[in-house]
């Protein structure tokens, strides 16, 4: 088991390095840098001015070097602007340039500063991540149990009326992306046109004080889409397990139907959906971004949109690293728990 986890962690680190490099490459393309120079410096800069601006700030070094500096394995860039000011990655206002550390990358905990919010990236990311964590927690609380219940109920008697009804419901929710269900839910429950007005159409106030009224719609919107998918997986898995010979063995041993489902079928049937739930994370992130935009909830997804929309390179990098990291960690956990759930898998 130990070597298995080690190997998985090693693959994970390799994946993370590759992914962050790709993100780094895409965000540091010249058109992006040019835009950055113009927004930071002067919109009417000439091409040469842009060049010098970028050069003095180290943006024109070879890509691997810049990546190394950002990562913190190469010494940070230091340069002098045309008007004689010292600039550098590791410099901070109010501290002499000589006192600056040599390395200041992600590994040292220095994620850079957001050019839009004028705040350290790490502060923004951690604060927004907390807000999104709150959202995700409630999504999970709502989604996972109901999806599993739905799937198990539908799958235990394949082809029955319950199965047909629940399956149709599940298919409908998987066919409804968040930007559709969100719009419909707001239209029905929050708009003045219909007039029900049970919930609020925005979740901005939920950032400080989440209540059922302002938080339920965003949670439901994300949960619905994922729920259908997990429920269908569970149903398929359950239906397959119910046709297995060992279920017939149990039946012919005289085990009652509820006990067959609970004792014999459930554990075997939950192995497949479990991995699905974990692998949903990159997907749920989609939902988070859409819902946070739709309901104006300023969490992690909202930050992503802001960073990308405003060419805030450092912030976008930070957001990417965190989301890639979250995805990889959940995959790792899912692998480990899968091994635990499925005694047949031998870990060599």
């Amino acid at each position, binding site marked *: 088991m130990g070597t298995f986890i080690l190997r998985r962690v090693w693959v994970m680190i390799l994946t993370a390095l590759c992914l962050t490099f790709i993100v780094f490459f895409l965000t540091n393309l010249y058109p992006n840098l040019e835009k950055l120079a113009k927004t930071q410096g002067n919109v009417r800069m000439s091409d040469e001015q842009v060049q010098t601006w970028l050069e003095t700030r180290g943006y024109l070094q070879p890509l691997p070097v810049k990546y190394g500096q950002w990562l913190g394995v190469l010494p940070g860039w230091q340069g002098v602007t045309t008007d004689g000011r010292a600039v550098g990655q590791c410099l901070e206002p109010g501290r002499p340039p000589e006192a600056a550390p040599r390395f200041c990358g992600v590994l040292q905990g220095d994620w850079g500063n957001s050019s839009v919010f004028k705040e350290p990236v790490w502060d923004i990311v951690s604060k927004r991540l907390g807000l999104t964590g709150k959202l995700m927690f409630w999504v999970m609380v709502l989604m996972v149990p109901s999806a599993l219940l739905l799937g198990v109920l539908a799958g235990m008697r394949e082809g029955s009326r319950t199965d047909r009804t629940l399956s149709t419901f599940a298919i409908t929710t998987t066919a409804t992306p968040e930007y559709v269900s969100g719009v419909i839910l707001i239209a029905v429950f929050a708009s003045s046109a219909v007039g029900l007005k049970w919930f609020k159409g925005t979740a901005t106030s939920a950032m400080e004080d989440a209540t059922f009224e302002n938080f339920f719609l965003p949670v439901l919107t994300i949960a619905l889409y994922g729920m259908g998918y997990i429920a269908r997986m569970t149903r398929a898995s359950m239906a397959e397990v119910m046709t297995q010979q060992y279920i017939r063995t149990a039946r012919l041993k005289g085990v009652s139907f509820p006990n067959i489902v609970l004792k014999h079928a459930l554990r075997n049937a939950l192995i497949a959906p479990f991995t699905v739930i974990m692998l949903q994370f*990159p997907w749920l992130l989609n939902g988070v971004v859409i819902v946070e935009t739709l309901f104006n909830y300023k969490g992690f997804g909202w930050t992503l949109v802001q960073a990308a929309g405003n060419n805030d390179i450092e912030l976008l990098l930070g957001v990417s690293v965190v989301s890639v990291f979250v995805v990889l960690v959940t995959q790792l956990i899912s692998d480990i728990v899968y091994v635990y759930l499925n005694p047949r898998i031998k870990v060599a």
Partner: protein
Amino acid sequence: MEPLSWGEIVLRILGLLTPVWIGLVATIALSIAFKRRLGLYGKLFDSPIGMVGFGLVMFWVFTAIFGAMDLIVTHDALSQSASMKNEPPGTPYSKLIGDPDPDAYPFYLLGGDNLGRDVFSRVVDGAWIVIQIAPLATLFAFMVGITLGLPAAYYGGRLDTFLSFLANLILAFPVILLFYLLVTPEIVATGIPSYMAAVMFVFPILFATVLLNSRYHTRPSVRTPVLAAVIAVLGWLYLSLISERAGALEVLPSWLDLFDIPGGILVVFVSVVFVNSPTVFRIVRGIAMDIKTRDYVAAAQTRGEGAWYIMLWEILPNARGPLIVDFCLRVGYTTILLGTLGFFGLGLPPESPDWGSTINEGRKLLSIYLHPALPPALALLSLVLGLNLLADGLREESLRD
């Protein structure tokens, strides 16, 4: 003129859709009449779920096609009328400046949006965008996934490890982040999407070449002309596709260049293919791993068949069932992705009538006006639902044997 009542609106829409109804009835009647001779497609009509799904999908396909042929659309999807801003469904058509064209359709059946454009026409035109891009992008993703998934499964070993690592790499990328990084005007300016397109669109050519060569290499007299013709046609299409006038890749002289795809559309297409391919790769690899242990594969090996013949003619045809099912699901997923792109205003031009963009615009005034956002939302929902039901029906019927 009086605004129309809801009943009148419904009747008028049903009437406008007459060509669609005719198409639908004809297709379904023909299919049911010959269902015993149509294989899996025919069996679809034994399953109520599959039939409903098929009906929904075909409804949108016909709507899109007849819409593009200008048989359904009532107004130009892009033209604005200031006096129609946010007007409710059934409002008579009017213009703030000047008189409306006397031949113009006298109503905005589903009302006007925040710029005074006809919602009904935009929904119909939006269908055409989806129906053009989604199946084609999915098809390309399948080409890429199949051409890489089969050898990964068949050879295994380091090739498999490497390709699987790549696939997992892309899968670990949050889709939305990828879109935000890839589908921006800055990236289009660097030409990266064109290069990616150049790489990805090679796969169909490779696929067709290898497919035909492995089959006919024992008969050079058939093989050579067929291959030459196929490569010539596909190659020309390929070069026209990737070559842009005054773009990043200018391979063909413009008199040979058949068509140009706007950079925005191309980048959308490429990123959708890029996001879908690894999943297809995984599915193909999984099925092929299973099939390659069959005796008929061993039989082909013992008579000395080449690896690609075995992959493409012994393994792939027997994987078609699950792949067809996944294709339907994946077209639905691609539709959702296209909507997502539109929703965030990525890639497609802002005035584009695609459903995602329309929903995005409509949602801003959602608490007051429902009619601009709801029709495209329901349209997207019903198309994807139809595809999912169709896939379900196909799966059920193919398992029934």
